[in-house]
Every structure is written in C-alpha cells, then in structure tokens.
C-alpha cells in the first residue's frame, strides 16, 4: 500500500470515528430526553370510558330495578348490590363471563321487619353507610361492607349489613324524599326533606364528662320556616357540623349545626345564574332549582348541581362582611338537561354527574377538568355510583345495570395545576402550592411546579450574586494583573475547588456555615457594609499615593496588599458584631429583623445557599472566563497600551469586549450548574416550598425536590410522573443554557480567529 492511500485511509477512519462519537453523544441525549418524555406522556393521555358489562332485559330484573332505592359495587368490581324498597338486597355477580345468567338475587331476610317501605336511600360509600328514609318518616342507618370471602373453596364477595337504630326524623309521619346522615365526633346527624317540602334535622349528641358518665341528648329541628323556597336537595358534611340545602329558587342554604340545640343559618347564597355566590339578601335568587348536592372526599368541597345542568364545586372562603361562606369556586362543564345524580369518588376529588337525558360526565373539582361525556342511552338513570377504585361507573337504568370501566389515572394533573394558580379547598384564594403528600387519604396532592421552579431560580439568583462578581473579577485579575507565579497558584487551586464533591459543600454549608452565620449574623451585616467601604477607601488612598511609591509595586501586587487589610476588617466586624446586636438590634437580631422588616430568619437560608452554591459555581465561571480573557491576543493589549491608554482602560476597552462572549458563556454555564445543583440545596436549605424572595428564608428547588420525593413516589403514580415533569424541565433548562453558552463561545472563538 503506498503512502497516499494509507494516509487517505487514516484520514477517513479518523473522520468516521469522530462522527461516530458525536452521533453517540447526540444519541445519548436523545435517549435521555425520550426516556423522560415517556415517563411524562401518560399524564397527557386523555381519560376514557367504555361499557364493560351490561345486565338487561329480564322481566325480573326490570322489576327489581324499579324497586331499588340504592346501589353499590365492590372494590374488585365483582359484585353489585341493589337495595329494595322492602329492605331486601339483590346481588349481581359481575365476575362471571355471561352477565345474563348471573342475575343472582340471593334471598336474604329484609333489613327491617314490619313491612315498612323505604321511600328514599342515600349510599355513602366513604362512610360505608346507606341511610334509608321511610315512608313513615323514619331514618335508618345501615352499615354496609363488601368483602372477599371463600365459601366452599370458591371466592365470592360477601355483603355485610348492620342495621343501626332508626330515628323518627319527620315528626308527622310523612314520607321522606331526600335524606342524609352524618356521624361525626360524639354526634350523629340526620337530615331530610319530606314529601311536603318540610326540612327536618335531628341531632343526637353524646357529651362525655371527665368522669366517664356520658350524657345523650337529642335535638329535632324543623328548619322549613327559614326557607324562601321549597327545599329540593340537601347534604350533610361528614363531620355533621354543616348542613347544605338547595331550594327550587336556586338558593343554597348553609347551616352551622355545631350547637345542637340551635342550628344557625350562616348564609343564603345564590347557587347559579349570573349572581352565583352572592348572598340572597343582596342579589335575589338563582336561575335554576338546585337538584343535587354532595360532599366530596374530605368533607369540604360541595358539588352543587341544578336543573339547568350547571355543575359547580363550592367550599367556604372568607367573604367580606359575611365571614366564612360557601362559594362557587370551580365551574365544570355543564349538562344540557337537569342534573339528577352526583356520585363522588372515594379516592380523590373526582365526581360523576348524570342528567335527566342519561348523559354521564366525569369531573375533577380542583383542576376543573371534565374528562368525558357518555351518552348512555335515552332515559333517566335510577342510580349512579363510582367504583371504590375510580376504575368504573355503575349505572342503574330502567331496564338494565351497566358497568362502564374508566381509565383516568392522573386526574389531578393538567397544565393549569402544574403551572397555574389553583384554588385548593381550605385556601382563601388561588395559589401556587407544592404539597405532594399529607396525613389522611382525604388529602389532596397539590402539584404546582411553580414554587419549585421559583426555588430553583431563587437559589440560582443568590448563588450568582455571590459567584458572578467573584468568578468574573477573579478571572479578570488573574488573567490581566496577576504575575505568572500567582497565576500558576490560583488556577490549580480553582480547579481543586471545582473538584469538590457538592455533597461536601452541602454538608459544610448546612452543618457548619448555617449555624455559624446564625451566631455571628450582626457581624456578617457589618462586613457586608465595611468590606466595600474599606475597598473604596483603599482605592482612594492608593490614587493619592505619590507615583514613584506606587511604581515600586508591580502591577497586580496592590490587590494582594489588600488581603491583610481585609482580614483586619473581618476581625473588627466580628468584634463589633455583638456590640451592634446589643445596641442597635435590641439584643436579638431575629426579633429585630422581624420587628423592623417583618422578616423571619431561617437558619438554612438563601444566603447560605448563595455562598455554598456560589462556591460550586465560581470554578465554572472562573475557568471559562479566565480562558476567554487570556485568549485575547496579546497584540491587542499591546496595541492599546502603545496608545498611551492605562492598563485598566485597556482591560475595559479591549480585553473585556473581546472576551465578552466567553464571559457570557461562562455565566450561562454557571447558571446551568446552579440550576442543576442538587446536594447543596438539598442539604443547606429547609426545603420548604415557599414562594418568597427573602434572602433569609429557604426554598425548595426542582432538583432537591426530585431527590426528596422520588423515594416516596410509587412507580407509575401521579407524583412519580410529575417528578419526571420536573426532571424534564430541569433537563431542558440546563440543556438550553449550556447549548446557548457553547454557541456563544464558539462564536467568540471564530471572532478571535479572524484577528
């Protein structure tokens, strides 16, 4: 092989290798991005529902359905029950392949004797209770439990029903048409509307004295006189302390039942129409009769549906001049026909609504999403139940029972809940909140990424305040003024700094620096003032020194002369700190900060982060800036100096402008480092996701949040995927910053090469 072909071959293989390497890097980035996107994608998938099972066209079933007052389904979708007006249950075995043959109405004794008929019943799956309203005005609570059991080696679902004490709710023995029941602490409350439109409440309270002896009292109230219209719907909060009632005039009544002997009407609020939310005294009436009321899990959000098809979620918020009042907070996609059923989820803020035309919709209260709208066939539904795991809807129709399976894994997440202000229940106004886990299963995850992004930016900002001047000016000094020997010391030291594991920095910052600064805070304040002052004073004195004396020190040494002086200033500040604290800060700087500025002081705060993360960012900024500054051609410097321009003017006039792209790119890459930094922010802040720019408070960064929450996030769950959204955000952010930084740098290299 002759030399030429060999050289060509080498050249070719080198080029191929380089191309392969570049491709591999591209591929890796692309794969990473793809992986993140794949984990996030399910959040964006729309919810869906399809009919899974239909039990129908059986004369006996039709009769059973006509007589049903309540229905329910178990956790595993194996068994549905239908409660009859005569107190008997019918069970449908949903697990068998052919639903037509599985109509199995196991004969059981009726729940109550004496042939009384139920006129209405309300199934509260969360409490595991059906409350039955009788034609004779009595109310009867029945505890219901569906659980798996093995009978003769075969797995079946057992329905256990425990009947409680009946109470006489309607004193005149009239039939009840609406009913609810709540069992709170030491109290049981029943509320009902009779066929005549009478609104009655019965509160049974047990007051326990210190010595154990309990005292029971029963209070019956007829609230009808306080109504301006005819009551059409009611709901009791699960704690039995609030009663919500709707009337045919579109008004919503909010009763406080805390005092059992005298319920207090807190407000009459317009439930729908243009004046919705205003009190009736000021605004009159609503447009449509309220047709259904139901509390969601947690007992704070109330779904209000009306004859006009409107669906809203309400909870109490402070209203000026009226105290805590129920207010329409979330509006949902409405129905065309009157809403007849509201079925809350047992797991989250989902609920289903059904209208008189048989259209069923699934909503989520907080995110205000409506996931789908199902045409279930003509005719009103006799019942609508959400399955315990939210994975199905049970529809009781005139001639059939249907089970629709639902896929809706991440109802809480929408663009708006991730990035917008959301009005969570219990909050006075919409806000950006991150709170992923809570104590009870009624807790609602609040997944706004804004406080975390804010935290990241806050941390970055304070780190940059610290790192940019030091990094850039340090690079300027080292490259332009320091002697070769000093350069040879400074550069490796900074390189070592870059190599410090951030966990070490975080550890030092959190466990050493934070308590230290909290201890000497007044001295730190003093230093913040005295160091710049000392520097300015020195510069002033230096300029007034006679030239020959100045000439004695080679350029760059004057800055070194400052060091001992700065040491003195620091020492002096440390000495004077306590004096300042006792004289000017009334002995305790925390009180003083709070009194004078209204600031609280967290020990692990943004100042600590600024310093610690600044430490991590300085080497990046320094090295790249230094590189850019010292690669400014010496000829340009000489050219400027030869014009009788001072050293400093040369630096600002030629060196910095020429190196500016490099400096900008160092800043960009430094920001990228700060944004992605995890260990330091994790260890040296309190990780509280607050949105507050105060330097003396902590924050929670996107990166630290991922580290904190990932171990607790069930794989594939909503939190898990939202954490991936956070990761994707970080990835894009740092990718963008670094790419921009590199582009600017490449631009600069081209510019210098042209010289």
């Amino acid at each position, binding site marked *: 092989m002759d030399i030429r072909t060999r050289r060509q071959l080498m050249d070719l293989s080198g080029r191929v290798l380089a191309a392969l390497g570049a491709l591999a890097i591209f591929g890796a980035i692309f794969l990473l991005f793809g992986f993140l996107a794949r984990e996030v994608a399910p959040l964006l998938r729309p919810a869906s529902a399809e009919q899974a099972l239909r039990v129908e066209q059986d004369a006996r079933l039709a009769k059973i359905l006509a007589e049903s007052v309540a229905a329910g389904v178990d956790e595993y979708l194996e068994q549905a029950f239908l409660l009859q007006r005569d107190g008997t249950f019918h069970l449908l075995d949903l697990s068998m392949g052919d639903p037509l043959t599985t109509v199995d109405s196991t004969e059981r004794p009726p729940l109550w004797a004496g042939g009384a008929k139920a006129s209405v019943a309300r199934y509260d799956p969360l409490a595991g209770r059906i409350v039955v309203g009788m034609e004779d005005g009595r109310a009867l609570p029945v505890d219901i439990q569906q659980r798996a059991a093995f009978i003769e080696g075969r797995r079946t679902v057992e329905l256990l029903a425990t009947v409680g004490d009946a109470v006489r709710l309607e004193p005149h023995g009239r039939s009840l048409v609406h009913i609810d029941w709540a069992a709170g602490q030491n109290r049981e409350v029943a509320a009902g509307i009779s066929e005549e439109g009478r609104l009655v409440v019965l509160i049974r309270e047990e007051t326990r004295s210190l010595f154990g002896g309990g005292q029971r009292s029963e209070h019956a109230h007829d609230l009808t006189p306080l109504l301006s219209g005819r009551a059409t719907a009611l709901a009791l909060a699960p704690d039995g302390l609030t009663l919500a009632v709707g009337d045919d005039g579109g008004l919503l009544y909010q009763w406080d039942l805390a005092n059992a002997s005298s319920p207090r009407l807190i407000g009459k609020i317009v439930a729908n129409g243009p004046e919705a939310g205003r009190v009736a005294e000021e605004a009159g009436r609503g447009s449509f009769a309220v047709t259904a009321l139901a509390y969601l899990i947690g007992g704070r959000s109330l779904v209000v549906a009306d004859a006009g098809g409107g669906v809203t979620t309400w909870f109490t918020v402070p209203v000026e001049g009226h105290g805590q009042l129920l207010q329409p907070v979330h509006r949902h996609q409405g129905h065309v026909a009157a809403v007849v059923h509201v079925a809350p989820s047992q797991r989250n803020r989902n609920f289903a609504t059904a209208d008189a035309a048989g259209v069923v919709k699934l909503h989520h209260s907080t995110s205000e999403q409506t996931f789908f709208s199902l045409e279930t066939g003509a005719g009103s539904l006799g019942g609508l139940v959400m399955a315990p795991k939210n994975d199905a809807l049970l529809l009781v129709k005139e001639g059939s029972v249907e089970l629709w399976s639902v896929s809706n894994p991440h109802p809480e997440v929408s663009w708006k809940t991730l990035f917008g202000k959301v009005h969570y229940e219990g909050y006075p106004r919409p806000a950006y909140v991150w709170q992923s886990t809570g104590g009870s299963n009624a807790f609602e995850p609040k997944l706004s990424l804004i406080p975390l992004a804010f935290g990241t930016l806050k941390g970055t900002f304070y780190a940059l305040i610290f790192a940019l001047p030091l990094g850039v000016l340090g690079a300027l000094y080292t490259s332009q003024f320091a002697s070769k020997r000093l350069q040879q010391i400074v550069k490796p030291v900074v390189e070592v700094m870059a190599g410090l594991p951030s966990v070490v920095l975080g550890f030092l910052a959190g466990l050493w620096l934070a308590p230290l600064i909290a201890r000497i805070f007044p001295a730190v304040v003093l230093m913040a003032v005295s160091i710049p002052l000392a520097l300015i004073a020195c510069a002033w004195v230096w300029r007034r020194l006679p030239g*020959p004396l100045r000439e004695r020190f080679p350029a760059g040494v004057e800055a070194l002369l400052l060091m001992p002086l700065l040491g003195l200033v620091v020492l002096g500040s440390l000495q004077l700190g306590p004096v300042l604290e006792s004289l000017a800060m009334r002995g305790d700087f925390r009180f003083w900060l709070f009194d004078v500025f209204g600031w609280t002081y967290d020990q692990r705060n943004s100042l600590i982060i600024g310093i610690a993360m600044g430490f991590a960012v300085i080497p990046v900024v320094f090295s790249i800036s230094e590189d850019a500054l010292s690669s400014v051609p010496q*000829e340009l410097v*000489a*050219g400027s100096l*030869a*014009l*009788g*321009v001072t050293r400093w003017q040369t630096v600002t*006039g030629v060196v910095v402008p*020429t190196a500016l792209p490099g400096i900008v790119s160092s800043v960009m890459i430094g920001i990228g480092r700060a944004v992605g930094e995890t260990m330091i922010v994790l260890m040296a802040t309190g990780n509280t996701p607050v949105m507050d720019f105060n330097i003396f408070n902590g924050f929670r960064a996107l990166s630290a949040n991922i580290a904190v929450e990932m171990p607790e996030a069930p794989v594939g769950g909503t939190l898990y995927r939202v954490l991936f959204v956070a990761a994707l955000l970080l990835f894009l952010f740092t990718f963008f910053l670094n790419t921009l930084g590199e582009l600017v740098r490449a631009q600069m290299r081209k510019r210098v090469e042209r010289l």
Partner: protein
Amino acid sequence: MENQRREQQPDKITVENLRVFYKDFEALKGITIGIKANRVTALIGPSGCGKSTFLRTLNRMNDLIEGVRVTGSIKLDGEDIYAPTCDVVDLRKRVGMVFQRPNPFPKSIFENVVYGPRRYGIKNRVQLMEICERSLKQAALWDEVKDRLHHSALGLSGGQQQRLCIARALAVQPEVLLMDEPASALDPISTAKIEDLIADLKKDYTIVIVTHNMQQAGRVSDYTAFFLAGELIEYGETATIFERPSDPRTEDYITGRFG
C-alpha cells in the same frame, strides 16, 4: 549647506549605553545613539540582532515582558524615561508605535481610530469625527473607508488594516512614531502607500522604522543605524551608510553578503 542644516537638527531621543537583558541573555550591549527630531531613522540588521528590542525600549513596551532588565539611559527631550517620576502612560502618548502585524481592535473603523482620544476623555462626537477624518486622511485611508466607518475593522484588507493602525497611532498625536517593519506583510502597492505616508509624516513627527528592506531604508530614511548581535555597528546619514559605509560588516550586510 544641506549638511549644515542636518547637523543643526537637535536630538529628540538620546540613548546612552543602553543594555537590555532578557533574564540572563544580553540582547542589547551598550547602545549609544541620538535620534534626530523630524527625521526618519531606519534600523537595519539581521534577524535577532535586537532592532525590535531597541524600538520597544523607546516607549517602554518592554515593561510588558517578564524578566526584562534595562540599564543605561534614554532621554526624551532631555527627560529620562526610565526615571521613577516618569509616567509610562504619558510616555506612550508621546511615543506611539505601529506593530509589524496589523492589530486592529475587533471594533468599527471609527472606534479603532478614536480609541485613544476617547480614553483621554474626549467625548464630543463632532470632535471625535474630526480626529477620525484627519487621522485617516493622514494615513491615506480616508477615501477607501469613508463610507463604512462604522463597519468592523476586521473586514479590511491587510494593507488597509496596517494603515488603520497607523491612523490609530496618529489620532493621539504623538511626537515620535515607532514602526516595527510596518510593511513586511504587505503587497508592493500597500507598501508604496505606506512609504509615501512616512515621507509625508516626517514634517510633524520623529519616526523610527525597523526594516529588512534595504531599498525601503534607502528610500524613506534620513538616518540609518545598523545593528548586529546586540551592538550598534554604524550610525549616520542614510546616504553615507549606503554609499560609503565605514565598517566592512555594514557593507557586507547592505550588499547582501550576509543576513
């Protein structure tokens, strides 16, 4: 008659027993020379003989190089420029320099020219414009660039860039102009322009020029100094040096026998 006039011409710069050391290496070994005011002095000599080093000592650009030591004395108008009382920045205002390789700043043509004046505190735009126009005209560049003063100087050709650097140096109105092989990287046309320029500038400036081109030295200079291995071998009027050199080494060099 003409001889008479030349001898009366006072020295602008007097150098006495100048020695320059790079660390231990002695690059200039006791130079004594007087540079005449408003004359062009050419420095010639083989590569590495210390011409640039000598030139740089005249405006103390050697200060930028680490490990340089200078002994002897250099007086500009009778003042020792290496005295502790001397302000280097002021010195360089008075003694400008044009480098071998054109080194325009990565700025516009206008900004390049007014770079010095701007930093001396002239802010008035009209005044800066006047300076710019005057300097560019002096450097014979005005006609070529007057329509693109605010374009980047890096877009100019090498010869234009070098004339821009001359304009930049002229804009600060120095008394002495040091030129280190200003035409070495240029084509004959640009070179001719620069030579014409030097002839023009002579009335206002004292010029010291380093060149390897004997014809050039003969064309533009009034005086010629021949350096060899750090020593000044011969110094005198150009005509004398070229026609009747007193040292055989000078003659060898000029006639191209070595170097």
